[in-house]
């Protein structure tokens, strides 16, 4: 019993090291910041993405991909990602302050 407890704690310590891991959503989203601004806060005409509603983000990307929403450049970028990836990025941006 005691041995298992010690091993589990050790495992937890190792797992907590994963707190520094860059999750896929954040890594995918990081490539967007070059146009949309450091920390998702734009200094120019491109919209800020920090704090954006996740569902709105996902729908926007889907509409850019389908052409339902006209775009200057986003119709091109949206075609590079899957719906699942939109959800991961959307999750990340929605939490970005």
């Amino acid at each position: 019993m005691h041995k298992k407890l010690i091993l589990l704690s050790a495992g937890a310590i190792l797992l907590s090291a994963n707190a520094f891991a860059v999750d896929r959503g954040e890594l995918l989203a990081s490539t967007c910041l070059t146009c949309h601004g450091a920390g998702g806060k734009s200094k120019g005409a491109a919209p800020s993405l920090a704090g954006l509603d996740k569902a709105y983000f996902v729908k926007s990307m889907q509409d850019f991909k389908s052409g339902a929403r006209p775009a200057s450049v986003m119709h091109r970028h949206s075609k590079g990602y899957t719906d699942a990836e939109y959800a991961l990025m959307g999750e990340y941006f929605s939490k970005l302050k």
Partner: protein
Amino acid sequence: MSINRRDFLKVSGMGAASALIAGCAGMGASGAKPKVVVVGAGFGGATCAKYLRKWGPNIDVTLIEPNDKFVSCPRSNLVIGGLRDMDYLTHSYDSLAKYGINMVKDMVVAIDPAKRTVTTKGGKTFGYDRLVLAPGIDVRTDTVKGFQEAEAAGKVVHAWKAGPQTALLRKQLEAMPDGGVYVIGIPGMPYRCPPGPYERISLVADYFKKAKPRSKILVLDSNPDIASKKPLFTWAWNSFYAGMIEYRGGNAVTGVDGGRMMVSTEFDDIKADVMNVVPRQRAGELCALAGVRNDASGNWCTVDFITFESTAVPNVHIIGDSVSAALPKSGHMATNQAKICAAAIVELLAGRQPEAVPVVANTCYSDTSSSTGGHVANVYRYNAEKKAFVDPGGGGATPQGDTLNHTYAESWAQNIWADVLS
């Protein structure tokens, strides 16, 4: 009751003993904080150092750069065209201080991949667990006959690295009389910033049209045809600058004569008022020092695209223009490669696997006049079979320019500079 190593490994799920040593929130070989040295603080290097610290706050990051300030080559054509000044391009590194990066103003002169050290001109030695090289390009001024003498005399510039040559080219264009000839030489692909020369031609033409309309631009292109965004630039040149630009594809510049102000190709010797020849390029010399400038041509560095680690030398990563890849050599690409590289190094130092399918996007804006512009945009996805980034399609370039792209180009500049430097 003792716990043996086998039990511990079973719980942690890690097989490799070395991973276990590295596993405690990232430990370096000596048990101290892991160390990463980044050489070059351009779009790639500065971004890599920042994101390494952001995602791996336990990592000791040293960033070595000889220049005081960051001077952006992207957008430098606006200075050459007289639309902006050098201050616009010039940025401080001070905002990176918040990430706790050890910034060293110095130049690396030696790299020992076996000992894992780099040594600077100032005599300092830095040890590393991982090294990131982001030196940009080495401009082969030795490959154009007479270039180096003419350059030393201030008679020819490439202005392919932003800084004094950018300002000098602008001065030369301002001093040129109406009716003069600006000759630009373009190297064969691959080179840094494929649309760059054609944007430069467009903005110089925009300036000439306003200030000295009888002047001419002669384009001597090593490439058989316009190498990037051809429809966009053809539209611009025909719409705005008809009669001003003479384009000669397949006309590589072979030599320059600063005394007589002549540019030579294999076909002609041409008299010029302003000579702007861009020689061909290769990965920065630092890469040769490390033994990683190893592609078939001997010009660029082959890497594992999941981590950007050299395929030739372990623990040395290369990002940006120096990389051998079917990817455009752009500041935007360097910035985004830096993030993938940083994330991969963070995971590796913590004994984890890096992201298996990285995806990187590139958007490249080019201005076609003082109020119009266009872009090319692509997303590249890592393909495990090809072990390379592949463009799955869906990207493309604008066939014509407009004011919206012009506005977005400026937005891109402000945002990428902030992403890289703050």
